[in-house]
């Protein structure tokens, strides 16, 4: 009997262990696509790399750029070089950014947030964004002779765009990235033509190629900007927002040529963002009386929608589907949202 008990306990132990292993394995598999996005962002910020990539946006021209990124003794250095005619270069060392503009014979030196990379356009999934996007691995394929995981970050509703990512299976670097609308139409694309990872990148790689002789140097020693700017008094806000969107910035300023102050309010879900401008509307001329004033527009990947609320012109603009700017503009109201 004791033996039987021992055997039963053993079987129970094996069963429990198997159950645990299967559960953990299942959870790991289920989390895997999201983990690839995490690994990608970690690789972008922690690895040393030197790559050439094309950046296409808005259906316009393709720009070729070179990015060099190094982390050495905890210090981040980056250099972004435009390989087209302008020859612009941006060199970041920690929070110091130097912008070399040969076509303007100018060098701008300013302070930027230390974690703000020169290479952007890749989605970051966190607790805020995870609820509104579904992450899946849709294929494994070869790109530039590398084995890649094709990961999609798809919105769960019609209020935001999605991403397709080709992530290198061994380095987790993104070899190709697309921002896509609901029909899969590509809005923006980044494709690496070459990418080299190395353990050491010399200091010489972070020197500008351009000669700055005779250039004008402009320094802006103001502290790096806060990414959340809120005035004390919230005059305009939104009664209702698409799921996940929150107000993150609010500013009132008087614009040249405007009759009164213009409110600028920003809403974001952590990936997508919408700017809303509210200004006092000039008195309508007789020919405009009682006519509808709602207007929609699209410029490249940006959508815009204007309407009139309480005698104010409200314009929402963002790199989001038209439904989102329409939703937010129509929800704007005077006074803070509670």
């Amino acid at each position, binding site marked *: 009997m004791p033996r039987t008990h021992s055997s039963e306990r053993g079987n129970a132990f094996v069963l429990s262990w198997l159950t645990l292993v299967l559960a953990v394995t299942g959870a790991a598999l289920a989390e895997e696509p999201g983990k690839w996005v995490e690994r990608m962002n970690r690789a972008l910020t922690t690895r040393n790399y030197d790559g050439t990539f094309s950046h296409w946006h808005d259906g316009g021209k393709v720009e070729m750029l070179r990015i060099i990124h190094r982390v050495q003794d905890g210090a981040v250095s980056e250099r972004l070089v435009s390989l087209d005619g302008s020859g612009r270069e941006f060199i970041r060392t920690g929070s110091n950014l130097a912008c070399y503009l040969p076509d303007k014979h100018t060098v*701008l030196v300013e302070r930027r947030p230390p974690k703000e990379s020169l290479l*952007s356009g890749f989605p970051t999934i966190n607790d805020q964004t995870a609820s509104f996007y579904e992450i899946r691995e849709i294929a494994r394929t070869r790109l530039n002779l590398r084995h890649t995981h094709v990961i999609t970050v798809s919105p769960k509703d019609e209020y935001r765009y999605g991403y397709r990512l080709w992530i290198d299976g061994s380095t987790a670097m993104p070899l190709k990235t697309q921002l896509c609308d609901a029909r899969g139409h590509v809005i923006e694309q980044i494709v690496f033509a070459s990418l080299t990872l190395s353990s050491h990148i010399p200091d010489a790689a972070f020197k500008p190629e351009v000669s700055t002789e005779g250039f004008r140097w402009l320094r802006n020693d103001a502290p790096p900007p806060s990414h959340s700017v809120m005035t004390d008094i919230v005059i305009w806000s939104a009664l209702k927002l698409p799921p996940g969107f929150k107000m993150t910035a609010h500013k009132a300023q008087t614009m040249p040529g405007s009759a009164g102050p213009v409110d600028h309010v920003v809403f974001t879900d952590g990936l997508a*963002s919408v700017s809303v401008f509210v200004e006092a509307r000039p008195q309508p001329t007789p020919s405009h009386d009682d006519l509808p004033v709602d207007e929609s527009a699209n*410029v490249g990947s940006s959508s815009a929608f204007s309407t009139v609320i309480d005698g104010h012109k409200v314009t929402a603009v963002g790199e989001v589907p038209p439904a989102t700017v329409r939703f937010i503009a129509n929800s704007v109201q005077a006074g803070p949202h509670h």
Partner: protein
Amino acid sequence: MGPNPSRLTMLHRHDCELCDEMLSQLRILGRTLTLPPIEVVDVDSDPTLRRRHGLDVPVLLLDGTVVCRHRLDPEELRRLLR
């Protein structure tokens, strides 16, 4: 109702000398050329604007389309306003 009037947007940054210069040049240009209303927007307040244009401030946009970066290009602005 006529077409939606054009709108100029200047993306700027706090304590940016080139931004102040572009704004001054726009004011001067406005004495001889009828300009649309100008919005001056902090590029760092909107993550998308910062990502798209943060390295090129100041940027002048006409109805969302880039007119010029860093320095005012009066000829390009005149051409686009025609």
